[in-house]
């Protein structure tokens, strides 16, 4: 990191080798920010399994998207009532492998076609909360003083607001339909806890010698934040991105299940709702109608939890300290 913080300065701005250096900087950035974490992620069974599960859902989303377009082959038909016989059990008819509901909709179709909107929700919500949290956490932690006091107060207020009731109120009043908007409403105050956590991480970094060096050399604050601070909280941000993704799943399914969000978009929560209110809960024969959406929800969030836990284990040097034999690391505490 210390070499990287020395890349700024007037010498770099000369035009000729400036672009080459820029390219190298980007490549280096790509290696550090993308390739290395991927390599590291693969080395732990949790992140490996977690990534595979998430990838599986991305594939499902792609299948649904291709099937819904005009030009693509219909791999999984879009759900429609009267698609098949009513209330077929799961694994009984190969045309409807996961069974059908009371309207004859194939449950497999419904599950698959709810995935793209779900992914949109998750990405919108997680990106919104993570970006906002990182911005506020990093700035307030690094700047200190009045800026910090104001941002911390705002964060604390947002953290104290009861998330779900606020979301329910907003959703009930605004009746959003766009998945991206729903995603943002779902994380309307989820950023606060994360911002607090990032701030305390930054507090421990702000007086490190390499940051001090950048400051003494007169680097602008934006550059110090971008080059010295943010890369060091990146793993932490990634973990929290995944956690807020899980929060979005829980929240969105809950709102759809309660019938607060308009049911025009397909969602696993709507499937749960229709199964629950149509009495699937009283009968053993149609239990698949209730269990399969549940399974879809739990598997995706399990994948995300696995990923977050594995990442935390890999990146948190404090947890890693006791297992330092396998990792060459001078910063590890004294080992016998």
């Amino acid at each position, binding site marked *: 990191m210390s070499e990287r913080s020395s890349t700024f300065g007037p010498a770099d701005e000369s035009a000729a080798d400036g672009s080459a250096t820029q390219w190298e900087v980007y490549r280096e950035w790509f290696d550090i920010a993308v390739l290395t974490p991927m390599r590291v992620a693969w080395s732990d069974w949790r992140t490996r399994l977690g990534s595979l599960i998430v990838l599986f859902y991305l594939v499902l989303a792609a299948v649904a998207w291709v099937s819904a377009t005009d030009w693509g082959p219909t791999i999984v038909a879009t759900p429609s009532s009267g698609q098949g016989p009513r209330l077929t059990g799961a694994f009984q008819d190969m045309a409807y492998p996961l069974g059908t509901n009371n309207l004859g909709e194939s449950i497999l179709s419904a599950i698959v076609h709810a995935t793209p909107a779900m992914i949109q929700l998750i990405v919108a919500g997680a990106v919104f909360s993570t970006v906002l949290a990182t911005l506020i956490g990093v700035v307030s932690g690094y700047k200190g003083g009045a800026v910090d006091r104001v941002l911390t107060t705002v964060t604390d207020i947002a953290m104290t607001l*009861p998330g779900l009731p606020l979301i*329910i109120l907003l959703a009930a*009043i605004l009746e959003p339909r766009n998945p991206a908007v729903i995603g943002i409403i779902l994380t309307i105050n989820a950023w606060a806890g994360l911002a607090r956590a990032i701030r305390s991480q930054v507090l421990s970094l702000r007086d490190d010698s390499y940051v001090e060096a950048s400051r003494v050399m007169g680097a602008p604050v934006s550059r110090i934040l971008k080059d010295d601070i943010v890369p060091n909280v990146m793993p932490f941000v990634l973990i929290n991105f995944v956690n807020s993704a899980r929060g979005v799943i829980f929240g969105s399914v809950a709102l759809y299940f*309660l019938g*607060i969000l308009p049911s025009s978009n397909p969602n696993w929560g709507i499937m749960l709702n229709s199964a629950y209110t149509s009495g699937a809960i009283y009968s053993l024969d149609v239990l698949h109608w209730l269990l399969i959406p*549940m399974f879809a929800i739990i598997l995706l969030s*399990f994948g995300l939890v696995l990923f977050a836990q594995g990442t935390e284990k890999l990146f948190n040097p404090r947890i890693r300290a006791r297992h330092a034999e396998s990792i060459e690391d001078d910063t590890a505490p004294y080992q016998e």
Partner: protein
Amino acid sequence: MYALKRVGQAAVTLLSVITITFALIRALPGGPGDAIRAQVMQSGGSSNVDMTQLNALVESYTNVDPSTPLYVQYWDYVTSILQGDLGQSIWYGRPVSEIIVQALPWTVLLLTIAILLTFAIGIVLGAAMAYAEGTDFDVGSTVVSMLLNSVPYYIAAILLVYFLSIQFGVFPQSGNVSSGLEPSLSLSYVGDVLYHAVLPVASLVITGFGGTAITMRGNAIQEIGEDYIRVAHLRGVPGRRIAVRYVGRNAILPMYTQFMISVGFMFGGSVILEQIFAYPGLGYYLLEAISTRDYPLMMGGFLVIAVAVMICVLIADLTYSRIDPRISDDDAREAY
């Protein structure tokens, strides 16, 4: 000083929550003012309704008189809420505060039991896992914890209702107490109340303790690796004493923030949980209010949940600064 600052901050939070509800009432299109006006217009014949009468009616319901300037409306609203006047429920035709006073104890009962159990189980299990790090018990418990942590509590609730109350009839499916029992401190009444609370509490605890256990495990492993623990061992401090006094205490302290957040989370979660169990707590009325578009009750319920969370967080913060002397005023740091 710290306490003073915290209380001041809580006051700011309270004011902002009130402002949010005011903004929601006042500014949103199709908000309560319009809704009440529309209802009155419908019932009273549209043409001959006196505008001032209408405004008075809107004011008695929502504490906002639409004919006065904005700042007067705001002032009236804030003062009447601080005096405990939350308006009049449209649906129930009773003061909102009366409904809330009835509902609040039930929610507090559920959540207190659930939070205490979640943290007790999580902390004990997490500590046991940390001490048995790497064994089959540790690996198994970690996987189970992660799996349970990826189940949304409302899904656990539905499954518990399905199996334990509908299929096997062990626990009641809904309600807070058997009908016909007179409220008293007798054993049968208290027992019945607890009996009805088992399933809602269980769904929060089962899905919640995993996260606590994993955090506790991480913290404890980190503490066990610290030098002062090694020194304590060398000094001949009994292992039990080290586990409880040294490791336990220091591993639990950082979880205080998590505790604060989970109080808010669970209060929010009560909305869905009480709906599933038809448990007449705050969340139940909040959701009823949303489905009947009963804005005064909606805002009142939200406000009370927010205040409840705020008080819990305030208590946690104030006691935390007593338990952990390392908490100090952050203002000592230099601003960059």
